[in-house]
């Protein structure tokens, strides 16, 4: 434990002794251990390229401390193999042509792989930093946003503003844009939550009609320019799922339908029941998708190039919806006949068997 603590400190400490001494000591001891191991190994089996085994300490140093310590390790490894294993033994020269090639190759491989290992480590650090940043920024943004949205709603309702059509339009602009910003922040928060903590869906009984109605109700502003047609087949069974995740997922699909289809066009929502599955399908008559779009639909950050300039968005919505649905045991898929021929998104959820205690549901 003490050693791991000591190593961890050397990674974060600003103290030069810890930062330089620790990797130095680790490097020398790992090479010494490797040399010993090779010596022992050679007494059992005979093999030529001992160099390759020295790559192990080099990788450890590259992943933990970066390129320079790794190259230092490579250097002492070359020295050790020349001194102990390549003739003349106990001499830093290597007379054998094979051995010379071996040492040069070793140095090149060590340099290239250390370079990649270091980059991998940096990328990992950047990813972690980015997630932490998004999380805290979104949280910090939400507090003032609550004040902006609340204040705008008070202003919009004030008699003086209500009697002035121009001012009331402006007050509503503030409100709507704050609403939109809130949804974007929610998406960022959801996305970071998915990749950092994973999703832990709850299971409770849901009436499919309820989910669709609530998802539409919560997005009245987004959907206000479109004609909504909702058709719910009779006798749709209940299912088990996480209502909050479903509301979010269906809401994302509805927002997209509104975003990528012209105002006043129709968005159709159908709930049907086929082969032990409940199917929610949401169709628009808008921009549609190319086969290429369909293939990448739902990828994180994917936005079709045709539409990226004309509309705003983060490319997270469908990715989040898919993550939420799949965690709940459902699926989501898109279908389009081609450009400008609309899109249909289908969400499928297996029907849960209702426990057979009919007596309780009958009524006197």
């Amino acid at each position: 434990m003490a050693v791991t603590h000591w190593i961890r400190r050397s990674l974060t400490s600003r103290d030069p002794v810890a930062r330089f001494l620790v990797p130095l000591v680790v490097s020398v001891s790992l090479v010494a251990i490797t040399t010993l191991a090779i010596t022992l190994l050679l007494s059992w089996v005979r093999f030529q390229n001992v160099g390759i085994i020295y790559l192990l300490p080099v990788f450890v140093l590259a992943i933990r401390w970066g390129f320079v310590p790794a190259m230092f390790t490579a250097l002492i490894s070359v020295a050790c193999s020349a001194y102990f294993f390549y003739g003349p033994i106990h001499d830093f020269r290597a007379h054998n042509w094979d051995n010379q090639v071996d040492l040069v190759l070793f140095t090149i491989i060590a340099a290239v792989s250390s370079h990649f290992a270091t980059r991998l480590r940096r990328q990992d650090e950047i990813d972690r930093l980015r997630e932490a940043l998004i999380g805290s920024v979104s949280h910090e943004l939400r507090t003032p946003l609550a004040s902006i949205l609340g204040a705008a709603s008070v202003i919009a309702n004030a008699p003086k503003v209500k009697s002035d059509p121009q001012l009331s339009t402006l007050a509503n602009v503030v409100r709507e844009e704050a609403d939109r910003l809130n949804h974007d922040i929610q998406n960022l928060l959801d996305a970071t939550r998915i990749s950092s903590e994973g999703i832990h869906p709850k299971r409770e009984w849901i009436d499919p009609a309820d989910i669709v109605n609530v998802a539409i109700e919560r997005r009245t502003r987004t959907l206000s320019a479109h004609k909504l047609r909702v058709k719910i087949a009779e006798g749709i069974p209940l299912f088990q799922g996480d209502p909050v995740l479903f509301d979010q997922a269906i809401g994302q699909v509805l927002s997209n339908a509104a975003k990528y289809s012209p105002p006043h066009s129709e968005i159709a929502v159908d709930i049907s029941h086929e082969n032990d599955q409940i199917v929610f399908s949401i169709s628009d008559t808008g921009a549609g998708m190319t086969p290429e779009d369909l293939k990448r639909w739902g990828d994180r950050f994917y936005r079709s190039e045709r539409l990226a300039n004309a509309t705003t968005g983060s490319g997270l919505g469908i990715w989040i919806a898919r993550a939420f649905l799949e965690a709940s045991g459902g699926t989501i898929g898109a279908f389009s006949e081609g450009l400008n021929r609309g899109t249909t998104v289908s969400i499928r959820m297996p029907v849960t068997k209702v426990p057979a205690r009919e007596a309780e549901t009958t009524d006197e």
Partner: protein
Amino acid sequence: MNNHAPSVLLVDDEAQIRRFLRAGFEMDGFSVQDAESGADGIRNATMRPPDLIILDLALPDIDGSEVLARLRSWSNVPVIVLSVRSSEDEKVKLLQLGADDYVVKPFGMAELLARSHAAIRRHTRNRSGDPVISLGRLSVDLANRAVFVDGERLSLTRKEFRLLQILAQHAGNVVTHGHLLNEIWGAGHDQDSHYLRIFVRKLRQKIEVDPTQPKLLLTELGVGYRLSAGESGKAAQH
């Protein structure tokens, strides 16, 4: 309701939130006092008991649910909680602790005012004991166990009536699944929420114009149901 202006106590540590809440409630005819910590809130509620309390959950000194529990130990003043999304369980817990309703931050003033008026109305109705609850198209006569939609009497089964009765008594405010299950089926049924879903469907078939798009009996996902208070609320939707 009463002759005097209703009073509201705002408990929130964010100055800007208190500011717009104060403006919104004053514009609606309330007299407003505010507190920036849980301890202050409890003190104010004791010294000048308000008709309504708006309680933020994230307070610097005492947890909001603790403030609520302490208030409920001696007062049944209506309390609306300011909550954040992604915590349906927390909302249910607060409602069980005695909160009358919640709004999710960020929220618009109209929504908060509608919930507030509903909670105050229920409170005054409980004291006056008026047996008829009128909610737009719907009216529920508790004394005669009769329900009318657009003036026409409905025939409801006993459980359907009980469900509607509880929701009507809380009209405009949310009622949790757990509370409804307990009241209608008794203790030990709080996990059997599919019964409730089925009865809500049956009831909607009888009271709604289009049962698939309910306007009266509304769903609060993951929490419970809310019977719309109709147009009787002062706050207009905008």
